[in-house]
């Protein structure tokens, strides 16, 4: 394929992002330092900074120290995280319900408000209307101009994402970025880190620079972000067969797990409830030595471990996180899976963790949608 030169507009956009990112990440705090850090000519930096100040994204906050060689004291620059707001949305599917969760965040990723709507699974055509009604819920709460919208969709959702994107762009007149939910969950962990001792091997900024998230709810999905954010993707892996004749979804999907739990309950006279069963019940029953719960737990470990071993063998991430409802099985599951996986494959230096939603900061995918949208628009993170 013939390679094309970047257009003048693309170059300017790239340079803008260099300047903004240098200020945002603290690598430079004045025009001269920006020129040195980005390699751009001083007049170019000056023009870009003026433009960013006019747009409210940067502000001058007084003067710094003069250089040792003398000269004028530089005017210090600061990034303004509340100059724009971003909406991140995640659509998830459960057996009976479709769930749309959205967060309104500033450019730092600080969540200002959340909006959620759960409704019975109907025809896919209703998704668009419901998406707009959820985004509208946060548009009503905007304190600053809307920069863009990030949208996370589940791997198995049968919907034309191009139509969704075009409609949302037309509706809100801002860029809209669509990715896979599980990939966005990985993006959220990459962009914001996780306040978790499991990340002790990550860099000092709290980020793991090669990260895989495996989301297990009704479906089984994988999202990854590798090479310091350069490579990222995600999608469903539920149809894969690690044991011939048995898909991952038929072993790890919630419908299958629940069915198996009830069968074990019947056989062993377990304390697991017959109705409204949760992973939390399994975890609690295990602590009482409930045989059905212990067998179910071991079966899950036996499926999860070879799956993670394959992922590690293929991608060699720095961190691998389990996410979704299965996380309610807690540290017991994580330790058992980690131990067995390390037995199956050399996992030296790889951190195993649970990616729990921080209740109150939106779900991981919606926050990841914010991170991805801001990265695309401003080059941050």
């Amino acid at each position, binding site marked *: 394929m013939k390679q094309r030169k970047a257009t003048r507009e693309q170059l300017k956009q790239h340079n803008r992002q260099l300047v903004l990112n240098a200020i945002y990440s603290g690598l430079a705090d004045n025009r001269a330092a920006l020129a040195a850090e980005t390699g751009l000519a001083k007049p170019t930096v000056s023009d870009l900074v003026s433009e960013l100040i006019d747009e409210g994204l940067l502000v001058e906050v007084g003067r710094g120290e003069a250089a040792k060689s003398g000269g004028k004291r530089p005017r210090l620059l600061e990034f303004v995280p509340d100059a724009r707001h971003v909406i991140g949305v995640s659509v998830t599917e459960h057996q009976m319900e479709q769930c749309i969760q959205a967060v309104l965040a500033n450019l730092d990723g600080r969540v200002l408000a959340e909006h959620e709507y759960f409704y019975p699974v109907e025809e896919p055509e209703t998704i668009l*209307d419901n998406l707009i009604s959820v985004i509208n819920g946060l548009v009503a709460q905007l304190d600053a101009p809307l920069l863009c919208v990030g949208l996370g969709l589940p791997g198995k959702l049968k919907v034309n994402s191009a139509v969704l994107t075009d409609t949302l762009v037309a509706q809100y007149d801002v860029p809209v970025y669509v990715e896979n939910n599980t990939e966005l969950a990985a993006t959220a962990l990459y962009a914001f880190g996780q306040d978790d001792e499991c990340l002790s091997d990550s860099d000092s900024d709290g980020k793991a620079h090669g990260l895989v998230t495996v989301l297990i709810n009704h479906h089984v999905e994988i999202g990854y972000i590798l090479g310091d954010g350069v490579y990222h993707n995600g999608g469903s892996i539920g149809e894969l067969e690690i044991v011939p004749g048995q898909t991952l979804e038929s072993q790890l999907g919630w419908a299958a797990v629940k069915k198996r739990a009830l069968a074990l309950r019947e056989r062993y006279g377990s304390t697991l409830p017959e109705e409204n069963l949760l992973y939390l019940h399994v975890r609690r029953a295990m602590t009482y030595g409930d045989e059905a719960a212990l067998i179910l737990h071991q079966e899950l470990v036996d499926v999860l471990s070879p799956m993670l071993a394959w992922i590690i063998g293929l991608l060699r991430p720095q961190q691998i996180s389990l996410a979704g409802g299965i996380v309610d099985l807690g540290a017991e599951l994580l330790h058992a899976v980690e131990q067995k996986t390390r037995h199956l494959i050399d996992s030296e230096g790889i951190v195993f963790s649970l990616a729990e939603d921080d209740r109150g900061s939106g779900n991981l995918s919606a926050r990841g949608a914010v991170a991805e949208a801001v990265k695309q628009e401003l080059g941050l993170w």
Partner: protein
Amino acid sequence: MHIGIVTNEQSGVFQRDVIAGAREVAVHYGHEVEVDSRDEAIDRQQPTSLDLAAVDGVLVITNVLPDDFLEGLYLGGTPLSLISHRHPTHPIPSVMHNNAQGIWKLMDYLVQRQRRQRLLFISGNREQRDGIERLTAFQREVIRHDLPEPLIIPGDFEPTVAHESLQRLLQTDGVIFDGVLAADYLMARETKKILAALDVAVPEEVSVVGFGDGPEAVDAGLTTVAADVQELGRRAMRQLLGQIDGLVIRGATVLSVALMVRQT
């Protein structure tokens, strides 16, 4: 524009702050607010004394209006926002505090920081969404922390009801608890008073925490999760004004809460 607010008792602590927040936003945009407080019109035959034809939109605080009346308003096209309540069948826009987050923070405080195991939960009104969600979240956290079966008594978000329930419980033989989580802070304050009268040391013998925060909680030194009630009103008014401007909204706007550690 003319905005109506329907509440059960405008002088109540919660209602007063919600109305103040909502009024602040309305006034900022130059709109008028009319409050219909049901405690001031006990003989009223209609669910609301507001002239619905004369208002541009209505904010409804908790479950003061019957669900079928709300349904009629919603289907009739009146812009409508609910505060701390959700309609059981229609996606009428609402604004809620993050009940699950609040209970999670209070439970982490009780179990991990205070090392409490045998808990008493004083529930809110189980016909209100806040009451249902806080109870459900509490039950989930009990399982998550692997605690013994807790005690649960009714409080209905009314300190007097909580008082009676707790007195009744304390007269029962063999009742043991070392931590109390009340579904609102006024019920927690009442609990602290009762325990003090019985010479039970708080928090040395029993920790007491409550959902929500206000001057009464500060005065009592209660550990709470602070739900900014005025912010609830502000967000609800923005949601309503958005609808009046033509935004179609479904579902709930959810606000975060923060743990306020004090002496209990």
